[in-house]
């Protein structure tokens, strides 16, 4: 549940950097504190030219550098609302409106379909800027619909995770998105459609404990925080400092939960290579019965 901290941090960083660079052109590297222009960083795929730190980016940036040619956004018609009337210091509705306004996004995940080189792929990409990338009903529903789309169109699925976990303000509905997305992924698996999971900084809580960890291939960006519990929670429990590198991508690779850690600059080529293997004539054909079943369910709804 670290999103709240990060959200607050995120807000302060945004305002302070505005003060330093009124034109909004300068971006500071969190690690080495070097400042760079947006153009400079964009060319470098937002990897710090000085220290190689992977700056956090969102769905727009990933779409831009991963896809080749035209892309199409899907399911943008789905919107969150405050159905529980959840008001703590602020109402959920206010948080939603503020997040929408600040980011121009419809929610914490964007589904994009297109091609990486010549390979069709459908990607669901999370945005941390939208309420800490938290998973509520819309995130779950977009993933579910993306999975149906992938089964119907027989395009591989890529999910890029970046999330503090479940969206508390949707309470049990957010919890059930873990079950929903995992269940839908089991259908994708049954249909023989590959799923690539890319974990970026951070991927924790209900997101790591559901779709993020369920890839046929699990990939992470370097030095991302990936785990079930947030480091602060674990520190509180064990009352000791955490070992260096604990819950980093490299740590997870070492413990067997990732297939690879990939530098952002190699990501497109890696995905392209992976996609090519799944074009083999031996790949399981689409499960026609399942496609029909999904069509029937959709018809009912």
């Amino acid at each position, binding site marked *: 549940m670290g999103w709240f901290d990060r959200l607050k941090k995120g807000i302060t960083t945004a305002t302070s950097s505005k003060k330093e660079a009124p034109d909004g052109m300068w971006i500071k590297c969190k690690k080495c504190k070097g400042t760079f222009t947006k153009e400079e960083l964009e060319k470098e795929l937002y990897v710090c030219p000085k220290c190689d730190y992977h700056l956090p980016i969102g769905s727009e940036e990933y779409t831009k550098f991963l896809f080749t040619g035209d892309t199409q956004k899907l399911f943008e018609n789905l919107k969150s609302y405050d159905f*529980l009337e959840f008001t703590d210091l602020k109402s959920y509705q206010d948080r939603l409106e503020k997040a929408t306004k600040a980011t121009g996004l419809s929610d914490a995940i964007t589904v994009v379909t297109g091609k990486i080189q010549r390979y069709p792929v459908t990607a669901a990409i999370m945005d941390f800027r939208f309420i800490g990338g938290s998973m509520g009903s819309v995130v779950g529903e977009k993933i*579910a619909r993306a999975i149906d789309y992938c089964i119907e169109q027989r395009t591989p699925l890529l999910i890029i995770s970046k999330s503090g976990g479940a969206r*508390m303000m949707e309470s*049990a*509905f957010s919890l059930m998105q*873990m*079950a929903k997305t*995992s269940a839908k992924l*089991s259908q994708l698996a049954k249909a023989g459609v590959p799923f690539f999971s890319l974990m970026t900084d951070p991927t924790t809580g209900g997101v790591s404990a559901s779709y993020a960890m*369920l890839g046929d291939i699990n990939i992470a960006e370097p030095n991302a925080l990936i785990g079930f519990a947030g480091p602060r929670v674990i520190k509180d429990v064990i009352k000791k400092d955490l070992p260096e590198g604990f819950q980093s991508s490299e740590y997870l690779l070492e413990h067997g939960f990732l297939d690879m850690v990939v530098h952002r600059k190699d990501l497109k080529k890696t995905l392209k290579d992976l996609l090519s293997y799944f074009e083999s004539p031996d790949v399981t054909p689409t499960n026609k019965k399942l496609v029909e079943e999904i069509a029937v369910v959709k018809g009912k709804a």
Partner: protein
Amino acid sequence: MENMVFLDFEKPLEGLFEQLAKLEEVSEKGDVDMSDTVKELKNKIKKTQKSIYSDLSPWQKVQLSRHPQRPYSLFYIEKMFKKATELHGDRLNGDDHAMVGFLANFDGRTVVVIGQQKGATTKERQYRNFGMANPEGYRKALRLMKLAEKFNFPIITLVDTPGAHCGLEAEEHGQAAAIAQNMFEMAQLRVPIISVVIGEGASGGAIGLALADRVFMMEYTWFTVISPESCSSILWRSWEYKETAAELLKLTSEDMLSFGLIDGVIKEPVGGAHFAQAAAATAVKKAIKEALNQLVDMDPDERIQQRIEKYSKMGRFIDEAVAE
């Protein structure tokens, strides 16, 4: 009625039970016939229980779900099955004492039953890690569910956890992956799955054992994404707002049923499961039996499809394409 534990809102009962104990002691000595007075007092207790329990706040229900005398998984397993044999280990790394698994005879039918187990004494609580399973527990559960599938045994899971364990080894051994894997596999298991929340249903630790054809909550339990205390500490930076958080989270069995996120509520006996333990086990057994009867004869593919469809429908959002 010795050693009864009373929660703050149960306090009006304490004096009544003390009186009852004294009366029964006197009447046992046999000089005076006290049976009418005893009967009257028992009625008064029942009335008081009814009035207390008919008007509980969400936070009070959370407290009841953690009542120190509330029965845990092992109690239900002992009461509900003619015969049960415990099985151990995840076949990978260890045996998690916070997660128990059994082969059991359920009125003539073999089932696999898995549950989180808390402890009653300090020593037991430590041994059971307060019902907080590690990845080994979730993998043990999955191994046993696969065993059930292989031999076509229905699966029953009993959920009672304040959360999956958070710690160094839990992370090192892949807590997130273990929970995710359970849900992924449970969605496709070819045997019926019935889950009952018998105490606390906290977050990933609960859902990792509760993707099922039928999910029930006992009346005085809770099931959601975060405990009221943690919710309070994150949103208000203080533990003081746990009551408010409990209300906001809509985490009671009644709320969950009204949302369609569970399939039924199992009514608890007057006074709660901790007061009438055997009656509580009977009620749980009845609910499981009815659900099982509905599920066993279904075509497995149909059952799986309905299971996934049920979860696919969970979520509230505005669909502007439909709204327009």
